[in-house]
């Protein structure tokens, strides 16, 4: 690691940034232009079209934005002064931005193909607080980026050392590999993805092409006539189904490979780090203190393959929560235990005593959904749409079963200073959080719940809400009292 870089001198980003900016623009233009290329290929273009002017306008705009970005690049300097990252930018009116280290929440690296060719990374800095600022370095040499990150992290953790040049002698941070995703496991992860989502993506893609083609002036209705109407036999339906399934599985696998190729999940001195990606290498780090909630999920396939997806949620503003979440797919329970040992040493999953929620959780839903179903049935009969009736019943039964499974699996426990919640309909989802990380508690009671002296409890954390539904009113009050007591008596800093 190179710590000899002097950050007190204002400097620009790496020159590779120019390339990155150009690449970004080309990508935007290409995504706009390719439907037109298809249209030209089909030989149906109409150059006098208003749309083509619009397209030209878009391209001009993209190029103007690119030029502005390029000019900005040459006038943007950064340096470190007084425990803050200083930025100077602007051509005519100089703007100076000052980001104090203590306000910086996350520093994330990203590397796409161009980045890795020149050994640079893009660096994204997020700060929390009411006035949210984000700053992205397009390209920074890897050693420089690492040095900058270490500087910021060390400065944050140790406020006493004022002069950052002293940091040169600090020992290197230890890194301990918890888990690497082997190619075999990667394939398994790809195979057991939620393929319904992939089908959704395919559909969206087709709709998008359809729309683009229509925009570009291709009369799709002409082709519709060419589809034979009478041959909707069993074979064709089966073939289409298999075709779609294959495509969606393939898409899932490709997506997985792109995202999780060569994944490494690392234990650092006081946190976790994940590096993954095929074309774009992403690196995401979270310190123990910032991790609020951990959860692991599986589905029917994953359960069979005996692994879960582990998620570590960091404290962050609602807008960037998703981006700050560390998700590790293809983890065995053994490795989950390993993470828990590091993160919550005093906790033992085996000592959790899961408690059930009230059966009313299912009954209430069943009643409401039945009434709704009856109304729909009435409509179907009234309009004599008999085949809709089958769909209605099918959906109704699916909803009922999934709610029942949810009820069967829902269990919670407040034990060993941790809140444990497990549930899920077809798959499983287990959530775990230290009680002192809870920001607020709310008990809700609907008229129905009041009649049966039940209540629901919501625990708000800095990375989402954990809800325990349909427990007895007294239990809810007791839990609320306990949580408040733990939160108020804890001297630990939640972040």
């Amino acid at each position, binding site marked *: 690691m190179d710590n000899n870089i002097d950050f007190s001198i204002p400097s620009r980003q790496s020159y590779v940034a120019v390339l990155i900016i150009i690449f970004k623009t080309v990508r935007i233009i290409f995504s706009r232009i390719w439907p037109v290329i298809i249209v030209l290929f089909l030989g149906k273009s109409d150059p006098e079209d208003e749309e083509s002017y619009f397209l030209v306008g878009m391209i001009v705009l993209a190029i103007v934005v690119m030029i502005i970005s390029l000019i900005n690049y040459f006038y943007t300097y950064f340096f470190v002064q007084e425990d803050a990252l200083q930025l100077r930018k602007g051509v005519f009116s100089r703007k100076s931005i000052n980001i104090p280290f203590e306000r910086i929440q996350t520093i994330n690296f990203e590397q796409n193909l161009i980045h890795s060719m020149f050994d640079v990374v893009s660096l994204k800095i997020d700060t929390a607080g*009411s006035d949210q600022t984000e700053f992205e370095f397009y390209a920074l040499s890897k050693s420089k980026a690492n040095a900058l990150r270490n500087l910021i992290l060390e400065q944050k*953790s140790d406020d006493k050392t004022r002069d950052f040049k002293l940091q040169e002698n600090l020992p290197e941070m230890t890194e301990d590999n918890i888990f690497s995703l082997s190619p075999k496991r990667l394939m398994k992860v790809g195979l057991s993805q939620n393929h319904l989502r992939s089908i959704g993506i395919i559909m969206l893609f087709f709709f998008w092409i359809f729309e683009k083609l229509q925009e570009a002036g291709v009369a799709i209705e002409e082709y519709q006539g060419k589809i034979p109407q009478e041959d909707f036999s069993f074979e064709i339906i089966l073939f289409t189904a298999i075709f779609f399934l294959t495509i969606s599985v393939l898409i899932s696998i490709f997506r997985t490979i792109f995202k999780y190729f060569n994944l490494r999940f690392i234990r650092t001195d*006081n946190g976790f780090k994940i590096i993954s990606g095929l074309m774009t290498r992403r690196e995401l780090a979270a310190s123990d*203190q910032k991790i609020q909630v951990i959860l692991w999920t599986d589905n029917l396939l994953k359960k069979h393959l005996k692994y879960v997806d582990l998620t570590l949620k960091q*404290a962050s503003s*609602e807008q960037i929560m998703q981006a700050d979440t560390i998700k590790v797919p293809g983890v065995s329970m053994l490795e989950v235990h390993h993470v828990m040992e590091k993160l919550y040493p005093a906790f033992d999953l085996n000592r959790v005593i899961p408690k059930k929620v009230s059966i009313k959780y299912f009954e209430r839903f069943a009643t409401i959904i039945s009434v709704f179903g009856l109304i729909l049935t009435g409509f179907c009969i009234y309009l004599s749409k008999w085949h809709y009736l089958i769909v209605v019943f099918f959906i109704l039964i699916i909803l009922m079963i999934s709610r029942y499974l949810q009820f069967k699996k829902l269990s919670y426990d407040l034990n060993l200073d941790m809140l444990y919640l497990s549930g899920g309909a077809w798959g499983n989802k287990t959530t775990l959080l230290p009680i002192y990380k*809870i*920001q*607020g*508690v*709310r*008990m*809700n*009671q*609907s*008229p129905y719940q*009041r009649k049966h002296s039940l209540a629901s409890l*919501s625990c*708000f*954390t*800095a990375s*989402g*809400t954990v809800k325990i539904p349909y427990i007895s009113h007294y239990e809810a*009050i*007791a839990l*609320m*009292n*306990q949580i*408040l*007591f733990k*939160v*108020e*008596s*804890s*001297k*630990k*800093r*939640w*972040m």
Partner: protein
Amino acid sequence: MEEIEFENPEISVIDLPDVETPVYQHVEKGYRDLSILTSSLIFIIILVIYFAGGLIENLLLKPVYMYSFLITWVIGFLVSVVLSYFSWRWQGYVLREHDILYRSGIFFRSVTAVSFNRVQHCEINQGPLDRLFDLAELTVYTAGGSESDLNLSGLNPEVAHKIKEVILRKTTLDG
């Protein structure tokens, strides 16, 4: 990371301070009047819109449609007024040594608790209608997202400022 040694003896759940027992402080009576006024205003606007629509589309002024609309309107109006009247009775707050409790709702009831050592900041708001009734709204923000923010509406402005001071003092003390 500072780790302060912290005693943690086992405590019986029954001995913990209870969120159900404290005496909740009512918000100002003016808030009840204000919520009745606001719901009345909304219903009057609905009425005006309906008849304005009637001028354009005569169908709306046919007795069948008009009477069924008026009946629904009257029922809705009464229900909302009664609801605003009674929900005031359940609405209230308590400041305790380490936290603030707030309860609200009439049919769908809720009790929210935020401990002072988790408060991010407080804000006092006074809309034009609030000023008319000499009321203010205190919002207590935590890091738990917008869902967990505590909205104490219908406070006397002086009381709101006092509560804010108390919370901020406690926050620095407990923090």
